[in-house]
């Protein structure tokens, strides 16, 4: 843009030679200085005002020819003007850039595009900048400004188009590298030209083709110019990198690289060491003023880190500062450290550690960005880096520790180490390689910067999106304070990491609880997290939400919920022994458990599972409850009345309730798992009833007489519920013991023997358990006819009993009891040691000697006076034992020989295919019915009761209100009948029954009373 401001007029040869002469033997300035015709005349006045050059956007030096006021005391303005304009022309034509993009590498540019300036050009430049005269000063500055503008023009015209970020890119690292390399190349070239010719022309001869212009410390006054130029250039660069795209690009690259650097698994791509960045780096170093050979030799090793005895990271910054390192001792140290580092790195490089590579790469990119002015110091690069680190912590923790619950947990230690040695090192490396263009800044930065500050600054920039958030405590020079602070910083980083870990663990707490006790480590990790009320609250709310979505819904089996609850109690007892958290999270689950109908049953079955035969159908039983019960009551259980505890002034371990304990919080030190479950219901009756039912089924469901385990369980339960509550169970156990004696007595009494001695051999044995009816739960009675033999035995037994206990009568409960069945079939003997009485009764009917080997279920039911569904179940049972089979049409026959049976099966398979055959296997699928039937029976009582109530309501309603459709009937019933909760199906069933009884009619979509 500014090129047009300096039209390069053709200059005659004679003029040129004179110009050269004059430049070699400079005449007195007052005599010959011309003003270049296109040079703004005002610069001479402005120059003293601008010891630091105006930055790039200031275009004041552009032609402003209104008042060409030459400096006084210039005797020959024309001569001066001519000389100057010639010099100007020569210089600018040499220094201006071709309208073309730069090649990718600086070297290439030097070889192909760069030409050593001709002598006259050098002279011209020198002429323009070499004087100390005030006026000449102005000229020099104006040339510098012109150069700045020229660079800008070229950059915007030819470099910027090359560094656009496409909306879509696949290879982010490559793209970033490309952009950075282009920018760095451009920057190097610009700077080279500047330094080689404009700022330090007098040193140029030493350089030859060496790009690495050593910095000269004696010319401190040059710094502001170069810095100003760099600043101007950087602002353009920064401007030409549009933020969302650029930030995103850097973010994605850094995320990947930093991830790799801190040990996250990454699709490892080993970058070639001699890549462009390195080269760029080398070229880039031309701007460095340090004469540090070592550094040049290992320019990419621009960092050094030492871990001191405290385990703290002391980061000695790289020497890439734009400016002088004032302390030469430091430099020496750097050298030594650097050498070691280089050696170490080399070894590592040979090992090809991707981690190290990535780390290096990050630093390379970062230093490139630094030089381009888009790096640290609160600029965009730092914000992006902070964001990257922020997400890295989370990602690392997630990748590394998700689902790792090994106990004892090393996670905390591991995380600490990681933060300290890996993450901390990376962060410090990167942030310390930050250098600023401002002299004060880097001097301050040169001191050992507290990592906390940098981290805090990073966080601030994340949080506030604020620019320039980096606060540097320049006064933090004192070593001790510094060390202490860095320690604190590491601590706070660790705290942050622990917090993240805690959040992760809270998130997976539900799984931890479910996996208990294999997940002890996870809980241990959490312990260090829940140290403040907010975190505790976070834990409880998150966990409660997880509970209600994942566990407390109808699809979860009660036993699963209970198991989770038990694990929860255990896990939270470890987590928070005071029980506040437990109390809070268990509220929901307890409330939910209370709503479940079968909670009590499942718990009691679990508690008594030791004495129950293992049930293959329900492997999910809560057997652990029995063990838990066996452990007895924790000592403090006795003190349940909380008030006493508070008054115990001798309790030296007393502590107030935790701050976040709710007002209803009761310290429940003594509550163990069983205690917690039992406290679900206040009433003991709920439990004792169920215990009795379970005990009854246990005592009666077997032919055994000895129930040691049961006695033990009941004794343990007495500890919980008290003797009185368990009285019924005591009686039950005593009944059994008494029965045994009575049974022995009656049997030995000889009453059982029939009059006919022959009969005895074949006749079955009969044992009886005599129950005190009042103390036993109501037993379900299914009436059916017993086989004659048994009936006779019973009568005889009665006689014996009445002899033993006068005035008492036996009432037989046919459906309760077991029968040892042995079936002799043609080719095998089937033994069923614990068949139920009704099963035995059914199979007895199939006895050939009784005449009937073929029965339909209906006939059987009639014959035995047995409920049809029960008969069905019995038949299904024997079918599953492969004793009976359906010979078709619902007629069941005995399978006398297996071979025959298999033949039939094969045949049927052939005919009907496997599906039907497998149905046969299961006894026409009635095995499936088996379970369902039980449920039906259970609820049918309730249903029948409701039917009785509802029937008159329906009658009255339809009598008085006329015909009504189903939904209306249902609605009215719901309104008027307490406890009516039937669905349409059940109601329809009843209505149909009533129609079958000719009470109702169905007509036109409505039910009505049958007309008589």
């Amino acid at each position: 843009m500014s090129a047009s401001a300096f039209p390069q007029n053709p200059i005659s040869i004679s003029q040129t030679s004179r110009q050269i002469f004059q430049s070699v033997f400079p005449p007195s300035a007052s005599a010959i200085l011309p003003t270049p015709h296109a040079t703004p005349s005002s610069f001479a006045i402005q120059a003293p005002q601008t010891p630091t050059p105006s930055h790039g956007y200031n275009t004041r030096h552009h032609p402003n020819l209104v008042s060409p006021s030459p400096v006084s005391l210039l005797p020959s303005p024309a001569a001066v003007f001519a000389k100057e304009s010639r010099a100007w022309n020569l210089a600018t034509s040499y220094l201006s850039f071709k309208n073309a993009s730069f090649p990718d590498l600086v070297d290439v540019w030097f070889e192909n595009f760069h030409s050593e300036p001709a002598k006259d050009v050098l002279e011209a430049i020198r002429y323009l900048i070499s004087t100390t005269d005030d006026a000449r000063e102005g000229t020099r500055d104006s040339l510098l400004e012109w150069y700045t503008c020229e660079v800008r023009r070229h950059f915007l015209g030819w470099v910027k188009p090359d560094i656009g970020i496409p909306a879509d890119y696949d290879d982010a690292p490559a793209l970033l590298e490309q952009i950075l390399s282009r920018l760095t190349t451009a920057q190097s070239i610009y700077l080279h030209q500047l330094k080689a010719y404009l700022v330090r022309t007098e040193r140029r001869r030493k350089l030859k083709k060496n790009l690495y212009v050593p910095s000269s410390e004696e010319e401190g006054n040059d710094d502001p110019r170069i810095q100003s130029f760099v600043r101007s250039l950087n602002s353009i660069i920064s401007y030409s990198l549009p933020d969302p795209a650029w930030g995103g690009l850097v973010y994605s690259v850094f995320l990947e690289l930093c991830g790799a650097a801190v040990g996250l698994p990454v699709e490892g791509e080993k970058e070639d060491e001699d890549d462009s960045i390195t080269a760029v780096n080398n070229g880039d170093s031309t701007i460095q003023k340090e004469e540090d050979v070592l550094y040049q030799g290992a320019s990419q090793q621009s960092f050094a880190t030492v871990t001191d005895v405290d385990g703290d990271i002391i980061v000695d910054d790289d020497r890439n500062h734009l400016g002088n390192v004032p302390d030469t001792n430091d430099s020496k140290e750097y050298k030594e450290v650097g050498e070691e580092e280089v050696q170490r790195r080399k070894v590592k490089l040979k090992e090809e550690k991707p981690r190290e590579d990535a780390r290096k790469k990050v630093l390379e990119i970062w230093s490139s960005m630094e030089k381009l002015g888009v790096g640290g110091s609160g600029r965009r690069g730092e914000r992006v880096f902070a964001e990257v680190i922020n997400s890295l912590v989370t990602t690392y923790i997630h990748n590394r520790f998700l689902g790792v619950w090994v106990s004892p947990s090393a996670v905390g230690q591991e995380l600490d180490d990681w933060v300290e040695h890996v993450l901390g090192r990376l962060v410090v490396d990167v942030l310390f390689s930050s250098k600023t263009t401002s002299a004060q800044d880097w001097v301050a930065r040169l001191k050992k910067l507290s990592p906390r500050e940098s981290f805090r600054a990073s966080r601030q920039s994340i949080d506030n999106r604020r620019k320039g958030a980096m606060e540097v405590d320049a006064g933090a020079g004192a070593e001790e304070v510094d060390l202490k602070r860095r320690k604190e910083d590491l601590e706070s980083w660790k705290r942050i990491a622990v917090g993240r870990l805690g959040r992760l663990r809270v998130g997976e707490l539900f799984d931890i609880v479910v996996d208990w006790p294999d997940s002890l480590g996870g809980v241990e990790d959490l312990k260090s997290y829940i140290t403040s009320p907010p975190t505790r609250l976070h834990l409880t709310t998150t966990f409660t939400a997880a509970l209600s979505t994942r566990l407390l819904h109808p699809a979860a089996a009660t036993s699963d919920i209970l198991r989770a609850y038990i694990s929860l109690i255990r896990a939270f007892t470890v987590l928070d022994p005071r029980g506040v958290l437990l109390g809070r999270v268990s509220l929901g689950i307890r409330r939910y458990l209370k709503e479940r109908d079968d909670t009590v049953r499942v718990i009691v079955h679990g508690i008594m599972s030791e004495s129950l035969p293992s049930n293959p159908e329900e492997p999910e039983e809560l057997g652990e409850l029995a063990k838990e019960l066996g452990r007895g009551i924790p000592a403090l259980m006795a003190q349940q009345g909380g008030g006493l505890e508070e008054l115990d002034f001798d309790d030296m371990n007393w502590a107030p309730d935790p701050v976040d304990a709710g007002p209803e919080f009761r310290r429940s030190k003594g509550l163990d798992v069983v205690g917690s479950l039992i406290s679900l219901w206040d009433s003991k009756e709920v439990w004792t009833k169920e215990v009795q039912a379970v005990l009854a089924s246990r005592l009666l469901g077997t032919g055994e007489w000895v129930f040691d385990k049961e006695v033990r369980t009941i004794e343990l339960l007495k500890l919980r519920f008290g003797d009185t509550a368990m009285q019924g169970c005591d009686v039950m156990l005593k009944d059994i013991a008494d029965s045994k004696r009575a049974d022995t007595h009656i049997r030995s009494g000889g009453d059982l023997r029939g009059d006919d001695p022959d009969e005895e051999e074949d006749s079955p044995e009969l044992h009886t358990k005599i129950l005190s009816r009042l103390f036993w739960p109501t037993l379900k009675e299914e009436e059916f006819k017993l086989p004659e033999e048994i009936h006779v035995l019973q009568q005889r037994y009665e006689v014996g009993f009445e002899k033993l206990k006068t005035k008492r009568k036996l009432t037989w409960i046919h459906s309760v009891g077991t029968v040892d069945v042995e079936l002799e079939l043609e080719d095998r003997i089937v033994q069923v040691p614990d068949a139920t009485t009704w099963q035995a009764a059914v199979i007895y009917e199939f006895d050939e000697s009784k005449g009937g080997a073929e029965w339909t279920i209906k006939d059987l039911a009639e014959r035995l006076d047995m409920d049809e569904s029960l008969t069905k179940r019995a038949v299904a049972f024997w079918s599953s034992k492969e004793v009976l089979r359906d010979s078709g049409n619902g007629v069941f026959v005995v399978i006398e020989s297996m071979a025959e049976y298999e033949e039939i099966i094969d045949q049927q398979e052939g005919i009907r295919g496997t599906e039907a055959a497998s149905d046969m296997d299961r006894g026409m699928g009635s095995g499936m019915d088996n379970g369902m039937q039980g449920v039906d029976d259970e609820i049918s009582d309730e249903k029948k009761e409701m039917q009785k109530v509802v029937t008159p309501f329906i009658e009255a309603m339809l009598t008085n209100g006329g015909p009504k459709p189903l939904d209306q009937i249902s609605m009215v019933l719901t309104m008027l009948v307490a406890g009516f909760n039937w669905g349409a199906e059940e109601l329809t069933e009843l209505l149909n029954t009533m129609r079958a009884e000719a009470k109702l009619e169905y007509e036109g979509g409505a039910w009505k009373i049958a007309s008589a």
Partner: protein
Amino acid sequence: MNSDAENSSNTAPTRSSKTAGPSSINAGQSVSKRLQAELMQLMMSSTPGISAFPQDGNLLSWTGTIKGPEDTYYSGLTFKLSLEFPSNYPMSPPTVLFTTPMFHPNVDMAGRICLDILKDKWSAVYNVQSILLSLQSLLGEPNKFVLTTPSKFRLVNYSPYKVIQANKSHSKSPLNGQAAELWDKDPKEYRRLLTLRHQQAED
């Protein structure tokens, strides 16, 4: 007809108010509670020949059904009634009307009933069941309240319709004079007119 029922189910989440319609919200819980209990009792006792049920689930408005007692003019016929309970029930009697056209000395053509327990002799111990039973017996025996009237009207020759006649001037006249007249005089005519009336209901 559904509006009441729907309203009550929509607006009344609790059971007590659910059972009563919107009209009974002010009546308080005691009325609906009492009627609820009466309904349950009625349902469970299953007295033959009488029946009643809240209309569309509105507890303050019931429909009753009475079967004519055997050996009366009314045997074989069924009659519908409407029972409207006041909000201070059972302190006040319900308003009972025959909705089936009726031919009876104590029932006028609009179905209004002259029965002492529904008027001044009402007591809180009566309930739907006793009302319906009383009405059923009224069908067989028209009201003889006149027997308790002052002695100068005491009749030598007892006959219900004459008694009623004698009380004409005391507003205790039969509500249906024709029915009263025919009651004893002409059973055949009575039965014919009754059947005629009753048929109107079925048409």
